[in-house]
C-alpha cells in the first residue's frame, strides 16, 4: 500500500489565518525592501563590473592568506579572496578598476603576473566592464518585468481580473522576499540569480494556477457558498498535490545543491528558498487576494448544496 503523506479530506481553515498571514507577509516585504536599501545586495561582477578569478593551487591546500597579502599589495582596490569548493581552490574577486572598459583587463594580468602559472591553474576568469554590467542589470530587470506583465495578461485572459491581480501580488511577494533573502544571506547576486528569480516566478505561478484552477471549478459548482469557505475547500483539495510537488522539486534541488558543484550552489540555494516562498504565497497571498478584491460578495449567504454542474 502506497505511503500516505497527507491525510485525506483535510479541512484546514486556511483563510482564517489570512488576516494574520497577509500582514505578516507585508511586514516581511517591508523588511526585505529595507534590507535591500540599507544593507544592499552582494552584487557580483555581472552587475557591478570587475574581475573574478578562480584558481586551483597545485598544493593540497591553497594558501589563502598568502594570496590575499600578495594581491593586496598590487593596489587593485578591494580584493576579496576566499576558499571555493575544494581546499585547494580559491576564488578571487577584484572590484571594478578605474579606466573604463580598457582598465579592467589590467587586473587579470596583474594577478597572473603575481601568482604565476606554475603553482596555480586558472580555472575561471570573468571580467565584466562597466558598460556590459549596466546592460546586464537593465535586461535582467526587464526580463522580470516582462514576465510579470505576460503572466498578468495570460491569467486575466484565462480567468478573471481578480485572479490576475492576485497572482501578480503573489509573484511580487516572492520576488521581494527572494531579494530580501539575497540581502540577508549576502549570497552573491549575479546573472544566474536573475534566472533563479524568474524560475521562482515560474514555479510559484505554477502552484498558484493549480489552486486558482480549483477555485474556479468550485466557484461554478457551489454558486452560493461564501468565498472563504470556497477558498478553503479549493486549497484543501489541492493540498496533497501542493505538498507532493514541492517535495519532488525540493528533492531534485537538494541533489543539485549538494552534488551540483560550487558554481551553481547559490543559484540552487535561491531556488530552494523560492519553493518555500512560492508554495506559501499561492495559499496565503494569491488566495486571500480573491477575498480582498471581492471576487464574490462576502454577504452571499445561504449554503445550498452543489449546483447543477
Amino acid at each position, binding site marked *: 500500500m*502506497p505511503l500516505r503523506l497527507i491525510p485525506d479530506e483535510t479541512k484546514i481553515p486556511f483563510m482564517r489565518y489570512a488576516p494574520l498571514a497577509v500582514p505578516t507577509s507585508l511586514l516581511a516585504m517591508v523588511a526585505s525592501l529595507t534590507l535591500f536599501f540599507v544593507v544592499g545586495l552582494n552584487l557580483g561582477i555581472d552587475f557591478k563590473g570587475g574581475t573574478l578569478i578562480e584558481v586551483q593551487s597545485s598544493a593540497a591546500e591553497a594558501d589563502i592568506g598568502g594570496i590575499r597579502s600578495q594581491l593586496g599589495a598590487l593596489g587593485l582596490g578591494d580584493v576579496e579572496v576566499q576558499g571555493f569548493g575544494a581546499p585547494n581552490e580559491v576564488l578571487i574577486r577584484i572590484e571594478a578598476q578605474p579606466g573604463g572598459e580598457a582598465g579592467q583587463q589590467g587586473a*587579470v594580468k596583474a594577478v*597572473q603576473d603575481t601568482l604565476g602559472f606554475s603553482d596555480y591553474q586558472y580555472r575561471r576568469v570573468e571580467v565584466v566592464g562597466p558598460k556590459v554590467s549596466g546592460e546586464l542589470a537593465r535586461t535582467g530587470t526587464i526580463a522580470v518585468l516582462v514576465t510579470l506583465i505576460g503572466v498578468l495578461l495570460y491569467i486575466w485572459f484565462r480567468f478573471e481580473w481578480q485572479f490576475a491581480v492576485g497572482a501578480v501580488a503573489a509573484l511580487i511577494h516572492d520576488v521581494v522576499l527572494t531579494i530580501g533573502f539575497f540581502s540577508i544571506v549576502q549570497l552573491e547576486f549575479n546573472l544566474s540569480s536573475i534566472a533563479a528569480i524568474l524560475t521562482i516566478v515560474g514555479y510559484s505561478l505554477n502552484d498558484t494556477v493549480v489552486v486558482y484552477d480549483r477555485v474556479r471549478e468550485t466557484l461554478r459548482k457551489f454558486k452560493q457558498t461564501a468565498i472563504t469557505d470556497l477558498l478553503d475547500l479549493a486549497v484543501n483539495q489541492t493540498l496533497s*498535490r501542493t505538498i507532493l510537488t514541492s517535495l519532488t*522539486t525540493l528533492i531534485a*534541488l537538494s*541533489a543539485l545543491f549538494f552534488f551540483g558543484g560550487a*558554481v551553481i550552489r547559490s*543559484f540552487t540555494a535561491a531556488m530552494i528558498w523560492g519553493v518555500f516562498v512560492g508554495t506559501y504565497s499561492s495559499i496565503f497571498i494569491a488566495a486571500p487576494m480573491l477575498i480582498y478584491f471581492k471576487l464574490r460578495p462576502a454577504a452571499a449567504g445561504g449554503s445550498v448544496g452543489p449546483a447543477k454542474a
Partner: protein
Amino acid sequence: MLYFARWKIALIALTVLAAVIVAVPNLLPASTAASLPSWLPHKQLVLGLDLRGGAHLLLQVERDSLIEERAETLVSDVRQTLRAERIGYRNLRAKGQTVSLTLRDTADAEKAMTALRPLANPIPSGLFNQSTVSEVDLALDGDRITATLNLEGLEERVRSAVEQSKSVLERRINELGTTEPTIQREGTDRILVQVPGLEDTRRLKDIIGQTAKMTFHMECSDGSLGEALQSRPPAGCEIAEPADEADGPILIESRARISGDDLVDAQPGFDQRSNQPIVSFRFNTRGAAVFGNLTQDNVGRRFAVVLDDKVITAPVIRSPILGGSGQIEGSFTVESAQNLAVLLRAGALPADLTIIEERTVGPSLGQDSIDAGRIAALIGMAAVIVFMLLVYGLFGIFANLALAANIAMVFGILTALQATLTLPGIAGIVLTIGMAVDANVLIFERIREESKLGRTAINAIEAGFSRALGTIMDAQITTLIAAIALFALGSGPIRGFGVTLVIGIMTTIFTAFLLTRLIVATWVRSSRPKSIPI
C-alpha cells in the same frame, strides 16, 4: 479519454523511440560517436563554453577612436584642398566630430564651398543596395565653414569597421591553430569571439588586443629631438615614443612613407649574426618600389618602424634595400616575434577594439561541472523515482516510466536541435525532473478524488485525466512565459537554462497528455481494475 486509435499508439511510441535514438550517441565517447556511419544518428550534445572550457570575449569597436581618426583625415583633406585652391584660412581644427575653419576673406566663401563639396562625397553603403549616404555635412556661416561627420556616415563607418575587424580577427585567430573558433557580430558595434578549449588566454588577448598598424617613417631632418622636447616639434614632425623603454624617443616625420598594408608576408626568424629573434617581411610590388626608392635616396639617415604609435626599431639605412624584403630587429622575444608576424600577416584592425567582457573557463573546471551536473541529475532522478514509488506504488511506476521518457526526450531534442547545453542548462534539466512529475501528481490526485466520490475505477480515471489536463496546461503555459523571458533576454549560460526549461515544458506536456494516459489506458485494458491502487 482512455481509448487510443492504433495509429496514435504507434505515433506516440515512435516519437519516444526517435527521441531516445537521437539521444543515445551521447552515451558514447565522443570519438566513437564521431566514427559512427552517417546513416546512424551520431550527433552529440553541443556543450557550452562553461562546460567544455574555452574563452568568450566580447569586443567593442571604439567609436571615439574611429571618430577621432576620421576627423583628423578630414582636417588634412581640407588643408590640402584649400591649399590647392589657394584659399586663405585660419583656425583649422577638429573638435569631436566637427572640423571648423575661418576664411581670411569672406569673398572666398563660395569658391571654398565648391572646392570642399567633393569631400562630402557619399560613401557606398551596403553590398547590394546601391543607395549611398553622405558622410560629411558642410555648412557656411559668414566666414566660418564647418564640416561635420554626420551620424549616418559614422554608423556606416562603424558597421564596416566591425566587418573588417571580423575578418582580420578570423585571420589572426586561425593562426593560433585552435579548433572551431566562432567570431560573430553582436549588435551594431560589437564582436563576440569564442574559442573552445583555450585555457590560457594571454596569447589570444595579445593577438586581438593590438591594432597592429605598422608604418615606416623617416627621421625628421629639420630640428633636433632636444629642441622638440623643449618647445614643440617642427611642422610635419612629431615625437614618437619607443616600444622598449630602454630606447629613447625619436623625432620622426608625421607622414608615413609606407604602411603595413603593402606587406605580403611576415615571418618570425633569427638574425644570422646576433641570433636574436627578428621578423622578416616582404613588400608587394608597389611597397617594394617605394621602399627601394626611399632607402636609395636616404642612405645614412635613420628611419623608424612604428607599430601602433610606438617605435619598435629605428635603424640607420646603410645601403639601398631593393629586393622588397627586409627584417625588423626590435627587442623581441621568440613569442613576441611570432605574434608580430601573425599580426602583420593578418593586417591591421581598422579601429581599436576593447575587451568589454571576458568569461574564460578552463577545461578542468568544465569537466568538473559536467561530472557534478551528471551526479546531481542522477541522484535527483533516483530520489524522485523512489519517492514516487513510495507514494503511488503501481502508478508511481507509470509516472517513472513517463519521467524517464520525458528526460530522454529532453536530451533527444537538445541533440537534434544542436542547442547548447550549459551548466545552468543542466540545472534546468534537474528542475524539469522535479517539476515534470507535477503533471502526474496532478492527474493521480485527481483520479483519487474522483474515485472517492464513488465513481468506478474506469470512470474515475477518465474524469481524473480530463479534469487534470486543463490545469496542467494552464500551469505549464504560465511557466512557459517565464522560460521564454529567460531565453529571449538572457545571454550565454542563462539562455541555455531557458532553452532546457522550454524544452522540458513541451516534453512534460507531451508525456502528461499522451504517454502517461497511454500507459494507464493499457493497464486498464489489460487488468480491468475494480479499484484504483492509489
